[in-house]
Protein backbone atom coordinates (compact mmCIF):
# COMPACT_ATOMS: atom_id res chain seq x y z
CA UNK A 1 0.00 0.00 0.00
CA UNK A 2 1.42 3.37 -0.90
CA UNK A 3 2.22 6.08 1.57
CA UNK A 4 -0.61 8.28 0.36
CA UNK A 5 -3.20 5.59 0.97
CA UNK A 6 -1.89 4.97 4.48
CA UNK A 7 -1.95 8.66 5.28
CA UNK A 8 -5.47 8.97 3.91
CA UNK A 9 -6.65 6.10 6.09
CA UNK A 10 -5.27 7.90 9.12
CA UNK A 11 -6.77 11.18 7.99
CA UNK A 12 -10.33 9.88 7.66
CA UNK A 13 -10.17 8.54 11.20
CA UNK A 14 -10.02 12.15 12.38
CA UNK A 15 -13.74 12.94 12.66
CA UNK A 16 -13.32 16.67 13.26
CA UNK A 17 -11.12 17.10 10.22
CA UNK A 18 -13.55 15.11 8.14
CA UNK A 19 -16.39 17.40 9.19
CA UNK A 20 -14.20 20.39 8.36
CA UNK A 21 -13.57 18.88 4.94
CA UNK A 22 -17.32 18.51 4.38
CA UNK A 23 -18.01 22.08 5.50
CA UNK A 24 -15.36 23.39 3.11
CA UNK A 25 -16.73 21.17 0.36
CA UNK A 26 -20.19 22.64 0.84
CA UNK A 27 -18.82 26.19 0.89
CA UNK A 28 -16.86 25.65 -2.33
CA UNK A 29 -19.83 23.96 -4.00
CA UNK A 30 -22.00 26.91 -2.96
CA UNK A 31 -19.44 29.28 -4.48
CA UNK A 32 -19.48 27.30 -7.73
CA UNK A 33 -23.27 27.28 -7.95
CA UNK A 34 -23.67 30.79 -6.51
CA UNK A 35 -25.90 32.02 -9.35
CA UNK A 36 -28.41 29.22 -8.81
CA UNK A 37 -28.40 29.19 -5.03
CA UNK A 38 -28.75 32.90 -4.40
CA UNK A 39 -32.11 34.68 -4.69
CA UNK A 40 -30.51 37.91 -5.95
CA UNK A 41 -27.63 38.93 -8.16
CA UNK A 42 -24.68 41.09 -7.14
CA UNK A 43 -26.19 44.18 -8.70
CA UNK A 44 -29.60 43.80 -7.11
CA UNK A 45 -30.49 46.39 -4.50
CA UNK A 46 -33.60 47.86 -2.91
CA UNK A 47 -33.21 51.24 -1.25
CA UNK A 48 -36.53 50.75 0.53
CA UNK A 49 -35.05 47.90 2.54
CA UNK A 50 -31.98 49.51 4.10
CA UNK A 51 -30.80 47.29 6.96
CA UNK A 52 -33.90 45.16 6.73
CA UNK A 53 -33.63 42.41 9.38
CA UNK A 54 -33.65 38.72 8.40
CA UNK A 55 -37.00 37.77 6.90
CA UNK A 56 -39.20 35.42 8.89
CA UNK A 57 -40.50 32.43 6.93
CA UNK A 58 -44.12 31.55 7.76
CA UNK A 59 -45.92 28.28 7.25
CA UNK A 60 -49.37 29.01 8.67
CA UNK A 61 -51.86 31.74 7.80
CA UNK A 62 -52.83 34.19 10.57
CA UNK A 63 -55.88 32.05 11.42
CA UNK A 64 -53.82 28.86 11.73
CA UNK A 65 -54.21 27.12 8.36
CA UNK A 66 -51.34 25.50 6.50
CA UNK A 67 -50.20 27.73 3.68
CA UNK A 68 -46.76 26.40 2.78
CA UNK A 69 -43.66 28.50 3.21
CA UNK A 70 -44.25 32.19 2.50
CA UNK A 71 -42.83 35.54 3.53
CA UNK A 72 -44.69 38.72 4.34
CA UNK A 73 -44.11 42.14 2.92
CA UNK A 74 -42.49 44.74 5.16
CA UNK A 75 -43.30 48.38 5.82
CA UNK A 76 -40.64 50.72 7.07
CA UNK A 77 -41.22 53.62 9.43
CA UNK A 78 -39.03 55.72 11.72
CA UNK A 79 -39.29 55.84 15.49
CA UNK A 80 -38.79 58.99 17.60
CA UNK A 81 -34.98 58.63 17.34
CA UNK A 82 -35.13 58.42 13.54
CA UNK A 83 -34.31 54.74 13.67
CA UNK A 84 -35.75 52.46 11.03
CA UNK A 85 -38.45 50.05 12.18
CA UNK A 86 -39.67 47.26 9.94
CA UNK A 87 -43.15 45.81 10.50
CA UNK A 88 -44.60 42.88 8.61
CA UNK A 89 -47.64 43.66 6.49
CA UNK A 90 -50.45 41.29 5.56
CA UNK A 91 -49.31 40.73 1.99
CA UNK A 92 -48.05 37.18 1.54
CA UNK A 93 -45.44 36.14 -1.02
CA UNK A 94 -45.03 32.38 -1.34
CA UNK A 95 -41.46 31.10 -1.49
CA UNK A 96 -40.72 29.57 -4.87
CA UNK A 97 -38.18 26.84 -5.36
CA UNK A 98 -36.47 27.00 -8.74
CA UNK A 99 -38.79 29.82 -9.72
CA UNK A 100 -38.04 32.30 -12.47
CA UNK A 101 -36.02 35.33 -11.44
CA UNK A 102 -33.26 37.47 -12.84
CA UNK A 103 -31.52 35.71 -15.69
CA UNK A 104 -27.81 34.97 -15.45
CA UNK A 105 -25.11 33.12 -17.26
CA UNK A 106 -24.40 30.00 -15.25
CA UNK A 107 -20.60 29.52 -15.06
CA UNK A 108 -20.42 32.11 -17.82
CA UNK A 109 -21.79 29.65 -20.39
CA UNK A 110 -25.43 28.68 -20.03
CA UNK A 111 -28.11 31.34 -19.73
CA UNK A 112 -30.68 30.43 -17.11
CA UNK A 113 -33.17 32.29 -14.94
CA UNK A 114 -34.11 29.82 -12.22
CA UNK A 115 -33.14 30.43 -8.62
CA UNK A 116 -33.14 27.88 -5.82
CA UNK A 117 -35.14 30.26 -3.66
CA UNK A 118 -37.06 33.35 -4.68
CA UNK A 119 -40.23 35.36 -4.11
CA UNK A 120 -42.15 37.46 -6.56
CA UNK A 121 -41.52 41.22 -6.48
CA UNK A 122 -42.31 43.41 -4.67
CA UNK A 123 -41.74 40.86 -1.90
CA UNK A 124 -38.15 40.38 -0.76
CA UNK A 125 -36.52 37.45 1.00
CA UNK A 126 -33.54 38.29 3.20
CA UNK A 127 -32.35 35.09 4.83
CA UNK A 128 -29.53 36.84 6.68
CA UNK A 129 -30.82 40.41 6.55
CA UNK A 130 -29.96 43.31 4.26
CA UNK A 131 -27.14 45.83 4.14
CA UNK A 132 -27.20 49.63 3.82
CA UNK A 133 -28.46 49.51 0.24
CA UNK A 134 -31.02 46.81 0.82
CA UNK A 135 -28.85 44.13 -0.77
CA UNK A 136 -29.33 40.56 0.38
CA UNK A 137 -26.43 39.62 2.64
CA UNK A 138 -26.94 35.89 2.02
CA UNK A 139 -26.64 36.37 -1.74
CA UNK A 140 -23.58 38.54 -1.37
CA UNK A 141 -21.88 36.08 0.97
CA UNK A 142 -22.34 33.25 -1.52
CA UNK A 143 -21.20 35.43 -4.42
CA UNK A 144 -18.33 36.77 -2.29
CA UNK A 145 -17.25 33.21 -1.49
CA UNK A 146 -16.10 32.96 -5.10
CA UNK A 147 -13.53 35.64 -4.41
CA UNK A 148 -12.69 34.93 -0.79
CA UNK A 149 -12.37 31.16 -1.11
CA UNK A 150 -10.45 31.06 -4.36
CA UNK A 151 -8.05 33.92 -3.79
CA UNK A 152 -6.39 31.93 -1.02
CA UNK A 153 -6.09 28.80 -3.14
CA UNK A 154 -4.58 30.57 -6.14
CA UNK A 155 -2.28 32.59 -3.94
CA UNK A 156 -1.06 29.54 -2.09
CA UNK A 157 -0.63 27.64 -5.35
CA UNK A 158 1.71 30.26 -6.76
CA UNK A 159 3.74 30.68 -3.59
CA UNK A 160 3.82 26.90 -3.17
CA UNK A 161 5.37 26.35 -6.60
CA UNK A 162 7.80 29.21 -6.00
CA UNK A 163 8.66 27.98 -2.51
CA UNK A 164 9.21 24.38 -3.64
CA UNK A 165 11.40 25.48 -6.52
CA UNK A 166 13.52 28.00 -4.63
CA UNK A 167 13.72 25.88 -1.48
CA UNK A 168 14.50 22.73 -3.45
CA UNK A 169 17.28 24.35 -5.45
CA UNK A 170 18.78 26.11 -2.43
CA UNK A 171 18.69 22.98 -0.29
CA UNK A 172 19.91 20.51 -2.87
CA UNK A 173 22.77 22.49 -4.35
CA UNK A 174 23.74 24.38 -1.19
CA UNK A 175 26.79 26.64 -1.15
CA UNK A 176 26.62 30.01 -2.83
CA UNK A 177 23.29 29.41 -4.58
CA UNK A 178 21.77 28.57 -1.20
CA UNK A 179 23.24 31.73 0.31
CA UNK A 180 21.90 34.06 -2.37
CA UNK A 181 18.43 32.54 -2.45
CA UNK A 182 18.06 32.53 1.33
CA UNK A 183 19.11 36.18 1.64
CA UNK A 184 16.42 36.96 -0.96
CA UNK A 185 13.85 35.15 1.18
CA UNK A 186 14.93 37.07 4.25
CA UNK A 187 14.55 40.36 2.43
CA UNK A 188 10.90 39.52 1.78
CA UNK A 189 10.37 38.19 5.27
CA UNK A 190 11.90 41.07 7.20
CA UNK A 191 9.15 43.54 6.21
CA UNK A 192 6.08 43.15 8.42
CA UNK A 193 3.44 41.38 6.35
CA UNK A 194 0.63 43.89 6.50
CA UNK A 195 2.80 46.86 5.53
CA UNK A 196 4.32 44.89 2.68
CA UNK A 197 0.76 44.12 1.59
CA UNK A 198 -0.12 47.82 1.60
CA UNK A 199 3.11 48.86 -0.10
CA UNK A 200 2.68 46.32 -2.88
CA UNK A 201 -0.97 47.31 -3.32
CA UNK A 202 0.11 50.94 -3.60
CA UNK A 203 2.50 49.95 -6.38
CA UNK A 204 -0.42 48.60 -8.44
CA UNK A 205 -2.43 51.26 -10.31
CA UNK A 206 -5.99 51.73 -9.01
CA UNK A 207 -7.57 52.05 -12.44
CA UNK A 208 -7.80 48.28 -12.81
CA UNK A 209 -11.04 46.47 -13.41
CA UNK A 210 -12.23 43.94 -10.87
CA UNK A 211 -10.63 40.93 -12.54
CA UNK A 212 -7.27 42.69 -12.70
CA UNK A 213 -7.58 43.68 -9.05
CA UNK A 214 -8.29 40.04 -8.22
CA UNK A 215 -5.18 38.90 -10.09
CA UNK A 216 -3.12 41.65 -8.50
CA UNK A 217 -4.18 40.58 -5.02
CA UNK A 218 -3.36 36.94 -5.77
CA UNK A 219 0.11 37.89 -6.95
CA UNK A 220 0.72 40.23 -4.03
CA UNK A 221 -0.33 37.59 -1.50
CA UNK A 222 1.79 34.95 -3.23
CA UNK A 223 4.78 37.28 -3.23
CA UNK A 224 4.51 37.68 0.52
CA UNK A 225 3.94 34.01 1.23
CA UNK A 226 6.56 32.11 -0.76
CA UNK A 227 9.59 32.98 1.33
CA UNK A 228 8.51 31.20 4.48
CA UNK A 229 7.71 28.02 2.59
CA UNK A 230 10.99 28.17 0.67
CA UNK A 231 12.97 28.31 3.91
CA UNK A 232 11.28 25.25 5.35
CA UNK A 233 11.59 23.27 2.13
CA UNK A 234 15.25 24.19 1.93
CA UNK A 235 15.82 22.88 5.45
CA UNK A 236 14.13 19.61 4.57
CA UNK A 237 16.13 19.23 1.35
CA UNK A 238 19.38 19.76 3.25
CA UNK A 239 18.65 16.66 5.31
CA UNK A 240 16.90 14.70 2.55
CA UNK A 241 19.83 14.91 0.16
CA UNK A 242 22.00 12.95 2.60
CA UNK A 243 19.59 10.01 2.66
CA UNK A 244 20.97 6.74 1.39
CA UNK A 245 18.33 6.42 -1.30
CA UNK A 246 19.42 9.76 -2.73
CA UNK A 247 23.04 8.62 -2.69
CA UNK A 248 21.95 5.34 -4.28
CA UNK A 249 20.18 7.26 -7.03
CA UNK A 250 23.32 9.29 -7.62
CA UNK A 251 25.45 6.17 -7.95
CA UNK A 252 22.95 4.86 -10.51
CA UNK A 253 23.67 7.86 -12.70
CA UNK A 254 20.47 9.85 -12.20
CA UNK A 255 20.81 13.54 -12.95
CA UNK A 256 20.38 16.19 -10.25
CA UNK A 257 17.04 17.19 -11.73
CA UNK A 258 15.78 13.60 -11.73
CA UNK A 259 16.85 13.18 -8.12
CA UNK A 260 15.20 16.42 -6.97
CA UNK A 261 11.97 15.52 -8.75
CA UNK A 262 11.87 11.83 -7.76
CA UNK A 263 13.49 11.59 -4.35
CA UNK A 264 13.59 15.04 -2.74
CA UNK A 265 10.48 17.07 -3.53
CA UNK A 266 8.03 14.15 -3.15
CA UNK A 267 9.26 13.76 0.42
CA UNK A 268 8.54 17.38 1.19
CA UNK A 269 4.99 17.09 -0.20
CA UNK A 270 3.67 15.48 2.96
CA UNK A 271 4.85 18.38 5.00
CA UNK A 272 3.96 21.01 2.44
CA UNK A 273 0.39 19.73 2.03
CA UNK A 274 -0.17 20.45 5.69
CA UNK A 275 1.72 23.72 5.39
CA UNK A 276 -0.48 24.75 2.46
CA UNK A 277 -3.68 23.99 4.33
CA UNK A 278 -2.36 26.00 7.26
CA UNK A 279 -1.28 28.85 4.97
CA UNK A 280 -4.59 29.31 3.14
CA UNK A 281 -6.23 31.16 6.09
CA UNK A 282 -3.43 33.74 5.97
CA UNK A 283 -4.29 34.50 2.35
CA UNK A 284 -8.02 34.68 3.05
CA UNK A 285 -7.38 37.06 5.92
CA UNK A 286 -4.97 39.08 3.77
CA UNK A 287 -7.61 39.54 1.10
CA UNK A 288 -10.18 40.43 3.76
CA UNK A 289 -7.84 43.00 5.27
CA UNK A 290 -7.18 44.65 1.90
CA UNK A 291 -10.87 44.68 0.99
CA UNK A 292 -11.85 45.86 4.45
CA UNK A 293 -9.83 49.04 4.08
CA UNK A 294 -11.13 49.49 0.54
CA UNK A 295 -8.02 48.45 -1.40
CA UNK A 296 -9.29 45.09 -2.51
CA UNK A 297 -12.39 43.98 -4.38
CA UNK A 298 -14.61 46.99 -5.14
CA UNK A 299 -18.40 47.36 -5.10
CA UNK A 300 -20.61 46.09 -6.61
CA UNK A 301 -18.50 42.93 -6.51
CA UNK A 302 -18.58 41.22 -3.18
CA UNK A 303 -15.91 39.63 -1.06
CA UNK A 304 -16.25 38.80 2.59
CA UNK A 305 -13.69 41.48 3.39
CA UNK A 306 -15.39 44.34 1.58
CA UNK A 307 -18.77 43.33 3.00
CA UNK A 308 -17.27 43.74 6.44
CA UNK A 309 -16.10 47.26 5.69
CA UNK A 310 -19.70 48.27 6.38
CA UNK A 311 -19.34 46.84 9.85
CA UNK A 312 -16.54 49.19 10.82
CA UNK A 313 -19.07 51.47 12.51
CA UNK A 314 -20.11 50.37 15.99
CA UNK A 315 -23.53 52.04 15.79
CA UNK A 316 -24.42 50.11 12.66
CA UNK A 317 -23.41 46.85 14.30
CA UNK A 318 -25.66 47.73 17.22
CA UNK A 319 -28.74 48.29 15.04
CA UNK A 320 -28.03 45.74 12.35
CA UNK A 321 -25.83 43.01 13.84
CA UNK A 322 -26.46 40.78 10.82
CA UNK A 323 -23.92 42.74 8.78
CA UNK A 324 -21.33 40.74 10.75
CA UNK A 325 -22.30 37.48 8.98
CA UNK A 326 -19.29 37.58 6.62
CA UNK A 327 -17.03 37.53 9.69
CA UNK A 328 -18.67 34.27 10.73
CA UNK A 329 -17.91 32.74 7.34
CA UNK A 330 -14.32 33.94 7.42
CA UNK A 331 -13.87 32.43 10.86
CA UNK A 332 -15.54 29.18 9.79
CA UNK A 333 -13.35 28.82 6.71
CA UNK A 334 -10.14 29.67 8.54
CA UNK A 335 -10.99 27.19 11.27
CA UNK A 336 -11.76 24.43 8.76
CA UNK A 337 -8.47 24.94 6.93
CA UNK A 338 -6.57 24.88 10.20
CA UNK A 339 -8.27 21.70 11.36
CA UNK A 340 -7.57 19.99 8.05
CA UNK A 341 -3.96 21.17 8.07
CA UNK A 342 -3.41 19.82 11.56
CA UNK A 343 -5.02 16.51 10.69
CA UNK A 344 -2.90 16.19 7.54
CA UNK A 345 0.25 16.75 9.55
CA UNK A 346 -0.80 14.17 12.13
CA UNK A 347 -1.70 11.71 9.39
CA UNK A 348 1.80 11.84 7.90
CA UNK A 349 3.89 11.98 11.04
CA UNK A 350 3.36 8.56 12.64
CA UNK A 351 4.16 6.80 9.41
CA UNK A 352 7.31 8.78 8.83
CA UNK A 353 8.44 8.00 12.36
CA UNK A 354 7.80 4.28 11.81
CA UNK A 355 10.24 4.27 8.93
CA UNK A 356 13.11 6.22 10.38
CA UNK A 357 12.20 8.70 7.74
CA UNK A 358 11.12 11.81 9.57
CA UNK A 359 12.22 15.08 8.01
Amino acid sequence: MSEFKLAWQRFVKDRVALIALWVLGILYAAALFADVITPYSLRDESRLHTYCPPTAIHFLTSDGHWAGPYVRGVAMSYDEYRRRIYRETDEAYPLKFFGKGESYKFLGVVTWDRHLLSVDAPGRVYLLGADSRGRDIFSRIIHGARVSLTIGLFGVLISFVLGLLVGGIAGYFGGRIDNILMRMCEMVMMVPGFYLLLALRAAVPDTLNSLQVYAAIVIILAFIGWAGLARVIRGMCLSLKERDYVLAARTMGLTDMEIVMRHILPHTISYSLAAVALAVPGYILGESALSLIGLGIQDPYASWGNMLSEAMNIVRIQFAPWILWPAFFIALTVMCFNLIGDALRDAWDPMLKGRGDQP
Partner: protein
Amino acid sequence: MLLRVNDVYKTFPGPVAALDGVSLDVHSGEHVSIVGESGCGKTTLARVIMGLVDPDEGSVIFNGHPLLTAHSRRGDFSRQVRMVFQDPFSSLDPRYSVRAILKEALRREPKMTPGEDFLRMRKVLDLVRMPADILTRYPHEFSGGERQRIAIARALMTSPKLLILDEAVSSLDVLVQQEILAMLEELQQRMPVTYFFISHNLRVVRRLSRKVAVMYQGRIVEYADRDTLFNAPSHPYTQVLLKAAFNYEVSP
Protein backbone atom coordinates in the same frame (compact mmCIF):
# COMPACT_ATOMS: atom_id res chain seq x y z
CA MET B 1 42.39 -4.16 -14.68
CA LEU B 2 38.88 -3.25 -13.64
CA LEU B 3 39.43 -0.48 -11.15
CA ARG B 4 42.46 1.46 -10.02
CA VAL B 5 42.43 3.82 -7.05
CA ASN B 6 45.41 6.05 -7.50
CA ASP B 7 46.95 7.75 -4.46
CA VAL B 8 43.74 9.27 -3.13
CA TYR B 9 43.72 11.84 -0.34
CA LYS B 10 40.63 13.15 1.40
CA THR B 11 40.37 15.28 4.51
CA PHE B 12 37.16 16.25 6.25
CA PRO B 13 37.08 19.16 8.68
CA GLY B 14 38.86 17.77 11.76
CA PRO B 15 42.30 16.57 12.74
CA VAL B 16 42.43 13.17 11.02
CA ALA B 17 42.67 12.50 7.30
CA ALA B 18 39.91 10.16 6.14
CA LEU B 19 42.01 8.89 3.25
CA ASP B 20 45.74 9.37 3.50
CA GLY B 21 47.19 8.24 0.19
CA VAL B 22 45.20 5.15 -0.73
CA SER B 23 46.12 3.14 -3.81
CA LEU B 24 44.43 -0.07 -4.79
CA ASP B 25 44.05 -2.20 -7.89
CA VAL B 26 41.09 -4.46 -8.42
CA HIS B 27 41.19 -7.06 -11.19
CA SER B 28 38.20 -8.83 -12.61
CA GLY B 29 37.03 -11.70 -10.44
CA GLU B 30 39.31 -10.81 -7.56
CA HIS B 31 36.64 -10.23 -4.90
CA VAL B 32 38.50 -7.66 -2.83
CA SER B 33 37.60 -6.94 0.78
CA ILE B 34 38.47 -3.90 2.81
CA VAL B 35 38.59 -4.42 6.54
CA GLY B 36 39.33 -2.04 9.37
CA GLU B 37 37.77 -0.51 12.42
CA SER B 38 35.05 2.16 12.31
CA GLY B 39 36.36 5.49 11.12
CA CYS B 40 39.37 4.08 9.27
CA GLY B 41 38.13 5.45 5.95
CA LYS B 42 36.52 2.36 4.39
CA THR B 43 33.21 4.05 3.62
CA THR B 44 34.92 7.22 2.42
CA LEU B 45 36.92 5.09 -0.01
CA ALA B 46 33.71 3.54 -1.36
CA ARG B 47 32.14 6.97 -1.71
CA VAL B 48 35.17 8.36 -3.53
CA ILE B 49 34.99 5.45 -5.95
CA MET B 50 31.27 6.04 -6.51
CA GLY B 51 31.76 9.78 -6.96
CA LEU B 52 29.64 10.69 -3.94
CA VAL B 53 32.69 12.40 -2.39
CA ASP B 54 35.30 14.29 -4.38
CA PRO B 55 38.88 13.41 -3.42
CA ASP B 56 41.28 16.23 -2.50
CA GLU B 57 43.96 14.55 -4.57
CA GLY B 58 44.37 11.40 -6.61
CA SER B 59 42.09 9.73 -9.10
CA VAL B 60 39.89 6.74 -9.73
CA ILE B 61 40.33 4.92 -13.02
CA PHE B 62 37.71 2.52 -14.28
CA ASN B 63 38.44 0.29 -17.30
CA GLY B 64 41.24 2.65 -18.24
CA HIS B 65 39.06 5.78 -18.11
CA PRO B 66 39.72 8.30 -15.34
CA LEU B 67 36.56 9.40 -13.53
CA LEU B 68 36.81 13.09 -12.87
CA THR B 69 33.26 14.45 -12.75
CA ALA B 70 29.80 13.24 -11.90
CA HIS B 71 29.09 13.37 -15.62
CA SER B 72 31.92 10.99 -16.52
CA ARG B 73 30.34 8.42 -14.18
CA ARG B 74 26.96 8.66 -15.82
CA GLY B 75 27.92 6.47 -18.76
CA ASP B 76 29.36 2.98 -18.57
CA PHE B 77 30.51 3.40 -15.01
CA SER B 78 27.05 3.85 -13.52
CA ARG B 79 25.91 0.64 -15.24
CA GLN B 80 28.92 -1.53 -14.51
CA VAL B 81 29.65 -0.43 -10.96
CA ARG B 82 26.84 -0.60 -8.42
CA MET B 83 26.78 -0.07 -4.69
CA VAL B 84 24.76 -1.65 -1.89
CA PHE B 85 24.44 0.50 1.19
CA GLN B 86 24.69 -0.47 4.81
CA ASP B 87 21.22 0.41 6.05
CA PRO B 88 18.44 -1.24 4.02
CA PHE B 89 15.90 0.89 5.90
CA SER B 90 17.17 4.07 4.33
CA SER B 91 18.60 2.97 1.01
CA LEU B 92 15.16 2.26 -0.51
CA ASP B 93 12.90 5.25 -1.08
CA PRO B 94 9.74 4.44 0.93
CA ARG B 95 7.62 6.29 -1.59
CA TYR B 96 8.12 3.88 -4.48
CA SER B 97 7.03 0.30 -5.09
CA VAL B 98 9.60 -2.43 -5.60
CA ARG B 99 8.85 -2.30 -9.32
CA ALA B 100 9.65 1.42 -9.48
CA ILE B 101 12.76 0.95 -7.36
CA LEU B 102 14.10 -1.77 -9.64
CA LYS B 103 13.13 0.13 -12.74
CA GLU B 104 15.01 3.20 -11.60
CA ALA B 105 18.22 1.19 -11.79
CA LEU B 106 17.70 1.07 -15.56
CA ARG B 107 17.52 4.84 -16.03
CA ARG B 108 20.79 5.07 -17.91
CA GLU B 109 20.24 1.84 -19.82
CA PRO B 110 19.08 1.81 -23.43
CA LYS B 111 15.30 1.77 -23.64
CA MET B 112 13.64 -1.57 -23.13
CA THR B 113 10.14 -2.81 -23.82
CA PRO B 114 7.95 -3.42 -20.75
CA GLY B 115 8.27 -7.14 -21.35
CA GLU B 116 12.06 -7.02 -21.25
CA ASP B 117 11.88 -4.87 -18.12
CA PHE B 118 9.74 -7.44 -16.42
CA LEU B 119 11.94 -10.37 -17.40
CA ARG B 120 14.96 -8.55 -16.04
CA MET B 121 13.19 -7.84 -12.76
CA ARG B 122 12.10 -11.45 -12.41
CA LYS B 123 15.62 -12.60 -13.10
CA VAL B 124 17.25 -10.45 -10.43
CA LEU B 125 14.53 -11.23 -7.88
CA ASP B 126 15.18 -14.89 -8.56
CA LEU B 127 18.92 -14.31 -8.01
CA VAL B 128 18.25 -12.81 -4.58
CA ARG B 129 15.63 -15.49 -3.88
CA MET B 130 12.62 -13.25 -3.66
CA PRO B 131 9.26 -14.08 -5.32
CA ALA B 132 8.29 -12.02 -8.35
CA ASP B 133 4.90 -11.04 -6.89
CA ILE B 134 6.50 -8.50 -4.54
CA LEU B 135 6.83 -5.98 -7.37
CA THR B 136 3.70 -4.07 -6.41
CA ARG B 137 4.61 -3.86 -2.73
CA TYR B 138 6.40 -1.08 -0.87
CA PRO B 139 9.65 -1.19 1.15
CA HIS B 140 7.96 -0.72 4.53
CA GLU B 141 6.22 -4.08 4.09
CA PHE B 142 9.52 -5.96 4.26
CA SER B 143 11.96 -6.98 6.99
CA GLY B 144 15.54 -5.73 7.07
CA GLY B 145 16.91 -8.85 5.41
CA GLU B 146 14.27 -8.76 2.68
CA ARG B 147 14.97 -5.11 2.03
CA GLN B 148 18.66 -5.79 1.70
CA ARG B 149 17.82 -8.49 -0.85
CA ILE B 150 15.78 -5.92 -2.77
CA ALA B 151 18.68 -3.46 -2.56
CA ILE B 152 21.03 -6.13 -3.93
CA ALA B 153 18.50 -6.97 -6.65
CA ARG B 154 18.46 -3.31 -7.61
CA ALA B 155 22.25 -3.31 -7.83
CA LEU B 156 22.16 -6.38 -10.08
CA MET B 157 19.62 -4.93 -12.53
CA THR B 158 22.30 -3.78 -14.97
CA SER B 159 24.48 -6.91 -14.54
CA PRO B 160 27.36 -4.88 -13.12
CA LYS B 161 30.97 -6.00 -13.32
CA LEU B 162 31.80 -4.56 -9.92
CA LEU B 163 29.53 -4.61 -6.90
CA ILE B 164 30.53 -2.46 -3.94
CA LEU B 165 28.96 -3.81 -0.75
CA ASP B 166 29.45 -1.24 2.01
CA GLU B 167 28.85 -3.10 5.30
CA ALA B 168 25.96 -4.71 3.48
CA VAL B 169 25.19 -7.27 6.18
CA SER B 170 26.38 -5.42 9.30
CA SER B 171 23.01 -4.03 10.30
CA LEU B 172 21.26 -7.41 10.04
CA ASP B 173 20.96 -10.00 12.77
CA VAL B 174 23.22 -13.03 12.65
CA LEU B 175 20.83 -15.52 11.07
CA VAL B 176 19.78 -13.13 8.35
CA GLN B 177 23.44 -12.30 7.80
CA GLN B 178 24.13 -15.96 7.15
CA GLU B 179 21.32 -16.18 4.60
CA ILE B 180 22.46 -13.10 2.73
CA LEU B 181 26.07 -14.28 2.75
CA ALA B 182 25.06 -17.68 1.40
CA MET B 183 23.12 -15.90 -1.31
CA LEU B 184 26.11 -13.69 -2.16
CA GLU B 185 28.36 -16.76 -2.34
CA GLU B 186 25.94 -18.38 -4.73
CA LEU B 187 25.88 -15.21 -6.83
CA GLN B 188 29.66 -15.37 -7.14
CA GLN B 189 29.20 -18.71 -8.88
CA ARG B 190 26.32 -17.66 -11.10
CA MET B 191 27.39 -14.23 -12.33
CA PRO B 192 30.59 -12.68 -13.67
CA VAL B 193 30.56 -10.05 -10.92
CA THR B 194 33.47 -8.89 -8.81
CA TYR B 195 32.80 -8.00 -5.18
CA PHE B 196 34.33 -5.04 -3.48
CA PHE B 197 33.34 -5.92 0.04
CA ILE B 198 33.67 -3.48 2.89
CA SER B 199 33.34 -4.81 6.41
CA HIS B 200 34.72 -4.72 9.91
CA ASN B 201 33.84 -8.39 10.33
CA LEU B 202 36.76 -10.64 9.47
CA ARG B 203 34.70 -13.84 9.51
CA VAL B 204 32.42 -12.42 6.83
CA VAL B 205 35.39 -11.21 4.82
CA ARG B 206 37.01 -14.62 4.85
CA ARG B 207 33.94 -16.19 3.29
CA LEU B 208 33.51 -13.83 0.38
CA SER B 209 36.85 -12.45 -0.74
CA ARG B 210 39.94 -13.57 -2.54
CA LYS B 211 42.08 -10.58 -1.63
CA VAL B 212 41.93 -8.52 1.53
CA ALA B 213 43.12 -4.98 2.20
CA VAL B 214 43.49 -3.87 5.80
CA MET B 215 42.90 -0.18 6.42
CA TYR B 216 44.12 1.73 9.40
CA GLN B 217 43.75 5.48 9.91
CA GLY B 218 43.17 6.29 6.26
CA ARG B 219 45.95 4.07 4.87
CA ILE B 220 46.03 0.58 3.48
CA VAL B 221 48.56 -1.12 5.73
CA GLU B 222 48.40 -4.55 4.17
CA TYR B 223 47.01 -5.88 0.89
CA ALA B 224 47.39 -9.58 0.30
CA ASP B 225 45.70 -12.80 -0.78
CA ARG B 226 43.13 -14.01 1.68
CA ASP B 227 45.01 -17.08 2.76
CA THR B 228 48.31 -15.25 3.13
CA LEU B 229 46.70 -12.56 5.20
CA PHE B 230 44.79 -14.86 7.48
CA ASN B 231 47.63 -17.34 7.99
CA ALA B 232 50.67 -15.07 8.02
CA PRO B 233 49.74 -11.47 8.60
CA SER B 234 52.73 -9.19 8.29
CA HIS B 235 51.51 -5.91 9.72
CA PRO B 236 51.15 -5.64 13.51
CA TYR B 237 47.71 -4.05 13.13
CA THR B 238 46.49 -7.00 11.08
CA GLN B 239 47.76 -9.32 13.76
CA VAL B 240 45.83 -7.41 16.40
CA LEU B 241 42.68 -7.52 14.30
CA LEU B 242 42.94 -11.24 13.70
CA LYS B 243 43.62 -11.88 17.33
CA ALA B 244 40.58 -9.89 18.34
CA ALA B 245 38.34 -11.57 15.79
CA PHE B 246 39.37 -15.20 16.14
CA ASN B 247 40.88 -15.08 19.59
CA TYR B 248 44.06 -16.96 18.76
CA GLU B 249 47.77 -16.23 18.71
CA VAL B 250 49.26 -15.83 15.28
CA SER B 251 52.21 -18.10 14.67
CA PRO B 252 55.41 -16.15 14.25
